[in-house]
């Protein structure tokens, strides 16, 4: 606990010092944008130094020996621990918590939206709650799978002892709590009401909470960049002998591809938010028409990140689901190389589709046709992922387990999400549907139906590996059905209201839309209640569940060949990879040579 207390204290001291110094130098109030900015920056440094960056790392910069904090048992999770498995669990627990928090906010919004007219949230509070829900859930989708399973599994799957930069890895995680604190304390400064997209000029002229949003999201971006850099370097340099690119587990490919994207394009989000911050705090005029600025510039910069960001969210989800499908269908991953090519096709095209978010923005009309063409083209590599999934299920020996049930729900949802995406890529239909609930339903189908389903499915599938215990299978299946059905009941009606003229981000709507909204609200509460089953099952099983076999699924990838949970530094001996990870049903095929001293690598 000591490092955490130290971090909180130093963080607060840093914040106060930054804000106070700013006021001392230039006057003004400690709650104005400049003071908050410097306070946040110094607070962030204080937090990081307190949690362990100083002890474990920065001391070396001053010629002192590093002396990382030692902790054992559950206290490891509260320290600057460099074990990738600890960090993976830290991410998993943090983002499941954020997911539940964001979901709770959605339930409050659905309460207000249950019937037309203003019930108990005034429009301002509604907009702020909606914005908070948005950014929390986006963060969960971006960093949930990559942070939790990317960290936990990538080194295990490639036969490495840890990530390439364990301290950078720990720092990536410990940047997350200040993000959460920054966002959740924004209401102290009037919160932010511009959605997670933070379009200017609104985000330049609204209340001071927007500054905390900007600083928190830039910090989150830094965490994503460092995390991506780590995964790319780890996969590129730390694969075990014999783990050629052609033998990488599909999740590793997915995490690698998403990390390349994350590493590069996240900078555009940071840049666009820095420009807003300058407009607010330094008097610049990037997005203000009065000084010759251009509000559309932000949208270009923002979507250059934020459209590929949906692939940062969903590529790891593809990886998780294809792992689950392959292992539980007990068949080789169908067209492995084609699926990997599909991933890279997605990465390549994803940076060239952003302006389909801007068909009604007033940008040059000459851009419409090319961006429509490129956006529709991305359906081709995405289709290859479906080919891999369906081809693997075909003729499989399906093991009826919760993760596979969720994989079926995922395929169903993501099909709907993908097809409805075409309506938004087509200029004509997008003109009508842009900024309506059709868009809301569509992206919930891709992000919840795609990514969050995979996060949840993965948390069941690797639960025995992480905890050494088994979850309750029947409750898991009940939840899988509950989640899939509940989710569809909430969002199918929202397609209809969107098509019929209900725009998004509104606290109130015409009487005409009352029926479907009431239905969606009731369904949302049913869906929300289901999560009690999820959390209850996993929390109870983590403590009291029956001990799990090290390899309950009979899976072939490396992580399953280790005890559960795997020991520190993972492998007693360097594993030697001798075959493809998914050669189910091929007699005599082996992925990893037996990890006995004889199997160890020669000198």
């Amino acid at each position: 606990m000591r490092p955490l207390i130290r971090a909180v204290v130093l963080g607060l001291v840093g914040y106060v010092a930054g804000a106070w110094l700013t006021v001392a130098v230039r006057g003004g109030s400690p709650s104005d944008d400049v003071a908050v900015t410097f306070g946040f920056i110094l607070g962030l440094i204080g937090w990081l130094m307190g949690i362990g960056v100083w002890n474990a790392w920065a001391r070396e910069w001053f010629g002192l020996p590093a002396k990382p904090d030692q902790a054992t048992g559950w206290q490891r999770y509260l320290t600057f621990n460099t074990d990738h498995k600890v960090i993976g669990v830290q991410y998993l627990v943090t983002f499941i918590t954020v997911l539940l928090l964001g979901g709770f906010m959605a339930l409050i919004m659905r309460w207000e939206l249950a019937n037309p007219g203003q019930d108990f949230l005034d429009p301002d509070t509604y907009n702020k709650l909606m914005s908070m829900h948005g950014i929390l859930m986006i963060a969960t989708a971006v960093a949930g799978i990559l942070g939790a399973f990317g960290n936990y599994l990538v080194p295990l799957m490639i036969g490495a002892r840890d990530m390439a930069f364990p301290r950078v890895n720990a720092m990536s995680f410990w940047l997350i709590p200040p993000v959460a604190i920054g966002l959740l304390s924004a209401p102290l400064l009037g919160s932010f009401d511009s959605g997670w997209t933070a379009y200017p000029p609104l985000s330049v002229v609204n209340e001071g909470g927007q500054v905390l949003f900007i600083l928190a999201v830039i910090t989150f971006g830094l965490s994503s960049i460092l995390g991506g850099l780590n995964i790319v370097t780890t996969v590129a340099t730390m694969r075990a002998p014999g783990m050629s690119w052609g033998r990488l587990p599909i999740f590793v490919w997915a995490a690698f591809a998403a990390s390349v994207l994350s590493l590069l394009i996240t900078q555009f989000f940071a840049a666009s938010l820095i420009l807003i911050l300058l407009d607010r705090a330094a008097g610049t005029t990037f997005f203000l028409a009065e000084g010759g600025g251009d509000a559309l510039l932000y949208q270009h910069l923002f979507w250059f990140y934020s459209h590929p960001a949906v692939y940062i969210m969903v590529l790891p989800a593809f990886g998780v689901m294809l792992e689950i499908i392959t292992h539980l269908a007990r068949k080789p991953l169908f067209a492995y190389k084609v699926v990997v090519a599909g991933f890279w096709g997605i990465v390549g095209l994803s940076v060239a589709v952003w302006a389909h978010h801007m068909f009604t923005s007033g940008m040059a009309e000459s851009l419409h046709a090319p961006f429509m063409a490129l956006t529709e083209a991305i359906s081709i590599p995405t289709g290859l992922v479906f080919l891999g999934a369906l081809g693997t299920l075909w003729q499989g020996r399906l093991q009826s387990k919760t993760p596979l049930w969720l994989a079926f729900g995922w395929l169903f949802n993501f099909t709907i999400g993908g097809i409805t995406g075409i309506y938004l890529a087509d200029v004509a239909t997008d003109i009508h549907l842009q900024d309506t609930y059709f868009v809301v339903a569509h992206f919930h189908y891709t992000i919840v139906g795609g990514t969050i389903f995979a996060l949840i499915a993965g948390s069941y599938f690797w639960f025995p590996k992480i905890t050494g215990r088994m979850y309750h299978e029947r409750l898991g299946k009940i939840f899988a059905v509950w989640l899939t059905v509940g989710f569809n009941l909430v969002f199918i009606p929202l397609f209809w209201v969107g098509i019929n003229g209900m725009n998004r981000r509104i606290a109130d709507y015409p009487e005409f839309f009352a029926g479907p909204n009431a239905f969606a609200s009731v369904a949302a509460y049913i869906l929300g209640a289901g999560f009690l089953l999820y959390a209850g099952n996993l929390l109870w099983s983590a403590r009291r569940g029956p001990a799990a076999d090290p390899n309950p699924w009979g899976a072939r990838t490396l992580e399953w060949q280790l005890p559960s949970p795997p020991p520190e530094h993972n492998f007693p001996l360097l594993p030697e990879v001798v075959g493809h990870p998914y050669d189910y049903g091929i007699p005599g095929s082996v992925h990893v040579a037996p990890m006995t001293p004889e199997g160890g690598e020669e000198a």
Partner: protein
Amino acid sequence: MNDSGGYKRDAIRVGLLWLALVVVLEVVWFSVEILPRQYAEEARIIDDAFNLLTILGIPVFSFVVAMLIYAALRFRSGGDASQDGPPIKTSTPVVVTWLVVTTALAVFILINPGLVGLAELRANPDADLVIEVEGQRWQWVATYPNGAEVRDELVLPVDTRIKFEVTSVDILHSFWVPGFRTKIDAVPGLTTSVYATPTELGSFAEDSALRLQCAELCGIGHARMVMPVRVVEKAEFQAWMADQLTAEAPAAEGRG
């Protein structure tokens, strides 16, 4: 049971299931009306695109669903984790067919409704009537050719190609009339434009699709940044527009 005869039987069955789903869903799609009423020529173009995408999307959706249903029913194992499925690693004909079909679909929808719809929407840059619309927090101000400034109701003549020149005085808004299916953002410092050719009479009182709704988040009053729309006969429109000029003076005072 893993012989090719078994595969063929599975393929035929899943094909039949797919076909049945396609037929059912297409019939359902053609027999229900989910799009709002069309009040403008542009609505027809956009709804045609919507219909075509749905007609093409149903087979894709049905294919996945048929595969899932069939897999769940037929390929379930007794639970013995040691029994592997057939070692099918890939199949070049399947991959090639898949790529050809998905590429063909993507190219098809790019041409129609994509480029065709775009061309139809942009076919005519002329307008019989130009109305300037200005968004501000949180109301719309329409300026008619005779100089009348209107805030309470957007009255439009039927069968007239109208160009809306849209701008904003403060932050982003978006001009959207669901009944017309037209939308364009109101951007400060920029004049954007959108066309609508009303084809049906009607008013907001009868159908909420006839409203000028702000569609871009703009703060507290965003949800209620609505201007009722009424489509009237041409003659009635001329009379109404003339009336607005005389009515304007007191209205302008009231604003101060």
